[in-house]
């Protein structure tokens, strides 16, 4: 059943997309910072997982926490040492700075890792199973599950944990964050670090189901925007909705219009949402 | 096209105006007439819908139902800038100067784009300077607008609205936070504006000032018009007294 296959592909893709966008949506929604280097963080996470796999034989799903921890540190330092100094500057300054970071990271990746395509291929990569006439690759399914797990964990963290609640308070206003006993600079750095960590995790999953090059950053950043906006920034679970919508749109778009139109579909959808309902599907209308 | 000037004819009329947001009713079935050259006061407890009414008249918001007529012509569908061209000017309660511009430039905008605008920059700047003199800011023309203190900001708001050469001027709490001397100055200023031919709607909490200024008073509570008449009549009305003293917090 072709439609069922396409539907399944779309859903699996959508789940992955959700975690890809998660870090960007968090940082944007809470700190009002649009991180144009988000895709580069994903790319770095992917390469880190790749080298842990080829060098130490670590299965990517096992190295996931390590990669996330490493990327957390990277993100934390960038916010603490650089971005915190620009928070009150006009909006496009932040966009430019993060773009600069993206350029630097992409260049370094190209220098260190070369432009060759790389995929993380553990033993189970490439094996599928059949369910209701639909072929499901194991790797994609596992990636989907982990993606949902990470999203759920973040939602819980923001709701229950003290630091998570402080981060949400920071989104409201800085004084509220201070009341929670968390100094704003720390709250900002913590949030950005978590965003980077999530990007790193997404990169690991991405490295398993797709191909890594130093240049995957920009398209992934663009997709993350689309997902964050479609889903709405007010609710962290919005990325699930956004991811699924985009995944399904791309899958069916490929089917009906042809694969070359895939980008046009996702971008057209984004433009439409921005014009018609900028706060996104789960967002509050002001 | 226009009503005879200063004849006391009706310049503005609200007919059964209602504004609803979701479940909340901000303005409910309000009707009144505002004669040309009249100073109409609008009072009421906080949250009564006064600023919303001004927003509806200036075009910042549209009513859910009802009609607003300026010079006999309906305002529905006209964006704020068109209403400014017709001669409706307003001040904002939370003042909104153009932050990066000088005091003079702030007012020049009104002179360039209001009713009977100046088209050339130098002439517009001159007109702006004149209005700033009128409101007492003549010595602060080149200062950055966001460097002004509270009372001066209000004068700036006033000058900006005046530069539009409004026929109807909507003043939203211009006296908040002023001391007694400053209040008297503003009352005098408003009187002189009316003497120049402008019709004025004043929202105010300072009862002494509103009593001195207003030809007539309107009282709003919970979005409804509960009293209308001269200051003496209205301020003695038991409903009005209860609205202020017996008011409960939303």
């Amino acid at each position: 059943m072709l439609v069922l296959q396409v539907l399944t592909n779309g859903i699996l893709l959508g789940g992955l997309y959700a975690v890809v966008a998660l870090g960007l949506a968090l940082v944007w929604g809470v700190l009002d910072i649009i991180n144009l280097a988000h895709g580069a963080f994903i790319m770095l996470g992917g390469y880190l997982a790749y080298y842990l796999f080829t060098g130490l034989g670590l299965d990517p799903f096992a190295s996931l926490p390590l990669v996330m921890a490493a990327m957390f540190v990277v993100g934390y330092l960038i916010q603490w040492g650089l971005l915190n100094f620009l928070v009150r500057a006009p909006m496009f300054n932040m966009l430019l700075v993060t773009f600069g970071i993206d350029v630097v990271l992409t260049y370094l990746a190209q220098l260190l890792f070369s432009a060759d395509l790389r995929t993380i291929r553990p033993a189970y990569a490439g094996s599928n199973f059949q369910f209701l006439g639909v072929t499901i690759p194991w790797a994609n399914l596992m990636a989907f599950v982990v993606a949902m797990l990470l999203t759920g964990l973040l939602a819980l963290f923001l709701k229950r944990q003290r630091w998570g609640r402080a981060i949400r308070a920071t989104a409201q206003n800085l004084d509220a964050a201070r009341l929670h006993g968390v100094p704003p600079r720390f709250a900002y750095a913590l949030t950005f670090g978590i965003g980077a960590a999530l990007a790193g995790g997404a990169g690991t999953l991405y490295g398993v189901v797709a191909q890594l090059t130093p240049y995957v950053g920009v398209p992934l950043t663009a997709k993350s925007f689309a997902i964050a906006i479609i889903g709405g920034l007010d609710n962290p679970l919005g990325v699930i909705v956004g991811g699924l919508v985009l995944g399904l749109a791309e899958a069916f778009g490929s089917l009906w219009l042809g694969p070359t139109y895939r980008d046009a579909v996702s971008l057209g959808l984004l433009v439409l949402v921005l014009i018609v309902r900028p706060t996104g599907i789960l967002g509050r209308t002001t | 096209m226009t009503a005879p000037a200063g004849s006391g004819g009706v310049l503005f009329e609200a007919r059964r105006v209602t504004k609803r947001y979701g479940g909340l009713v901000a303005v409910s079935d309000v009707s009144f007439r505002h004669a040309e050259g009249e100073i109409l006061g609008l009072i009421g407890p906080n949250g009564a819908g006064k600023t919303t009414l001004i927003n509806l008249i200036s075009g910042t918001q549209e009513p859910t139902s009802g009609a607003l007529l300026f010079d006999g012509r309906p305002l529905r569908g006209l964006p704020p800038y068109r209403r400014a061209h017709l001669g409706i000017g307003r001040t904002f309660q939370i003042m909104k100067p153009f932050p990066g511009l000088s005091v003079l430039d702030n007012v020049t905008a009104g002179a360039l784009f209001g009713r009977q605008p100046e088209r050339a920059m130098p002439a517009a700047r001159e007109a702006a300077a004149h209005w700033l003199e009128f409101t007492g800011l003549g010595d602060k023309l080149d200062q950055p607008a966001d460097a002004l203190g509270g009372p001066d900001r209000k004068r700036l708001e006033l000058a900006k609205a005046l530069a539009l050469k409004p026929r109807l001027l909507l003043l939203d709490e211009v006296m908040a936070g002023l001391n007694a001397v400053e209040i008297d100055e503003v009352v005098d200023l408003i009187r002189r504006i009316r003497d120049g031919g402008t019709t004025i709607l004043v929202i105010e909490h300072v009862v002494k000032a509103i009593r001195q200024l207003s030809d007539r008073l309107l009282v709003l509570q919970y979005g409804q018009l509960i009293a209308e008449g001269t200051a003496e009549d209205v301020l003695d009305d038991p409903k009005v007294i209860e609205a202020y003293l017996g008011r409960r917090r939303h």
Partner: protein
Amino acid sequence: MRALVWVLALAAVAALALVPFTLSPVIVQFGISTLLLAVLAQGWNIIGGFTGYASFGNSVFYGLGTYGTAVAMVQFKLPFWLGLVIGAGVAVGFALVLGLPVLRLRGHYFAITTLALSEAVAAIVANLDIAGRNTGLILPLIRGDTMFYELSLGLVVLATLTVLWLSRSRFGFGLIAIREREDAAEVMGIPTTLYKTLAFGLAALFSALAGGIHAYWITFIDPASAFDISLNVRMIIMAVFGGAGTVIGPVIGAFLLSGVAEVLASYVTGVASLFFGLVIIAAVVFTPRGVIDAVRKLPRRGLAYFLDTVRETRL
């Protein structure tokens, strides 16, 4: 004072115009690229610097101008000047029509929408047969860079004069008021929607003409290079670094940053993009209001200027 500025400006333009006749072809080529970037920076200055709508997708107008000119010349065998007119027409039409919904958005949302729009158009163009799909188009060859250089210089002058006019006219004043506080501008009688859309159209016009000139000069275009996203950032950083909202700032920013990039590239090959990234970061941190602002204030404040800026923008 006024007369002196005009004399200096004329002298500068004359000096620049003489470059193809006095300096090496390599410099002429560098000149053309830089001049076209300066046009893009000025175009962005109109919508981003003056009107306050930081568009991240002006590359779409550049791309439409590129393709409009190319398609006119390659598929319909029309002369260059007509191709330019068509390219500009397509871009301005696009700006006016799509400007209406898109300019209703503010801040980040506007920036993202313009970026997405330019990517979407690029993706669509890459699928059109008349545009040569992904392979692109090859334009007729014409030898001699001098014509392109003088054309580009002329366009920079035109764009800068337009911005000068904006800084003095009623229309430009309206745009600045919109940037400062749009809702206050509206109640003061400024037709905000009309003005914003016109500003957008002006930006489109200059960007498209730059694209058309570039297309004929380079003779080969494809979707990736015509709708190159990095152009957006480059034009913005040049305008912002030079001074957004000023008349000459974007041009100075374009020349300075291009010059720096060239010099670095010739000393340390291959690392140009790395340094470009670092330069952007440094520029944004230390001179967020642009070089012109720094030049004006450094003499008085000295190095304290940088401390002040950082203090104002830090968390």
